[in-house]
């Protein structure tokens, strides 16, 4: 009897893009968390995916922010295409030490999200970290 389509559900545009530029301060991470939650709600993700996405963004944000050079800005972009959300965070680092793929944090990320990447490039003589991941509800899986 319950098929989740109601007439009042607004038709989502095919793509959306949200961006936040926050200081490299862990105290600002709740902003990213709220954005993630708001986007998941707007995309009508199921409650499990919604919560996974929020935790994944929290972990991603925290990984980037704690490595970022103090006083720098972390840019976080959410791109939603259909039911897939790609989250990318970019920051200038304190050091070019790579993100540890054997860590618990990495395991958390790869459990909660797919296509997790972390790349460090030199930009203008400084190491810059780009981390990204994708989140999508299980239905959207083939």
């Amino acid at each position: 009897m319950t098929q989740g389509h109601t007439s009042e559900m607004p038709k989502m545009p095919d793509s959306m893009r949200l961006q936040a530029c926050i200081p490299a301060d862990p105290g600002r991470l709740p902003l990213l968390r709220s954005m993630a939650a708001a986007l998941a709600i707007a995309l009508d993700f199921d409650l499990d995916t919604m919560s996974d996405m929020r935790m994944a963004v929290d972990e991603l944000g925290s990984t980037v922010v704690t490595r970022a050079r103090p006083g720098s800005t972390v840019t976080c972009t959410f791109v939603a295409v259909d039911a897939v959300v790609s989250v990318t965070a970019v920051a200038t680092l304190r050091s070019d030490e790579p993100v540890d793929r054997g860590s618990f944090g990495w395991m958390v990320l790869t459990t909660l999200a797919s296509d997790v990447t972390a790349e460090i490039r030199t930009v203008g003589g400084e190491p810059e970290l780009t981390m990204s991941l994708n989140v999508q509800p299980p239905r959207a899986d083939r």
Partner: protein
Amino acid sequence: MTDSDDDYAAAEALFDELSSLEKGDPRRVAVRDQLVTLHLPVAQHIAAKFSGRGEPGDDLQQVATVGLINAVDRYDPSRGIAFLAYAVPTMMGEVRRYFRDSTWSVRLPRRLSELHQALGRASRELSQQLGSAPTPSQLAHHLGVGVEEVQEALQAGQSYRAASLDEPGGDDAAGALTDRIGEPDHELDLVEHRAVLAPALARIPERERAILAMRFFEHMTQTQIAERVGLSQMHVSRLLSRTLEQLREQLTTADDSTDE
């Protein structure tokens, strides 16, 4: 002889046995479990009484059970008080504490906080029907309210302060609870850097650790975990986020101090 007389005699015999056993005796666990199981209907009754609708929420029942486990652990038969006379106030105290602690940290319009509670109930029902967690539009349809209202309530739920059960290290009951659930033997050791992880994990209450392991090692969904441990999905979600946050804080500190 009535059933309750039988139960009473059985409980008395079990408490005698429990007090005769040495601290480390493995038999203690079994006796304790029997005592908890025997009195579970009392915990359910108390939960039902407080829920005000005859059908206690899972969380409430869980909280009353925690009170029961505490009572079993702390009851001293030599003091000459009947177990129930001791246990009932303990269980009620636990339930009251739950209500006191689960207030909204931000004052919400009554409509929203009521809707948020209804969402918890609806999400349980729908998860069972669908076999997975529902979406906001499915919740709205199920409850017969607008999607926007549901979205608003979910967003507001972000500021919901976790209930007392969520408080870390609040009491030893959290451990007792996972004993009852039967914590599976997880491969927490398999993660690299377990030297860093182990002390951090040791500071996480047992139940939270079990939930963490179910999500990240057994790859269960939150809805499946909720079903296994008898909490709501929203409660599991709050516990998981908070546990991760604690771990992150501790691991970051550890990283900084080893600075490899």
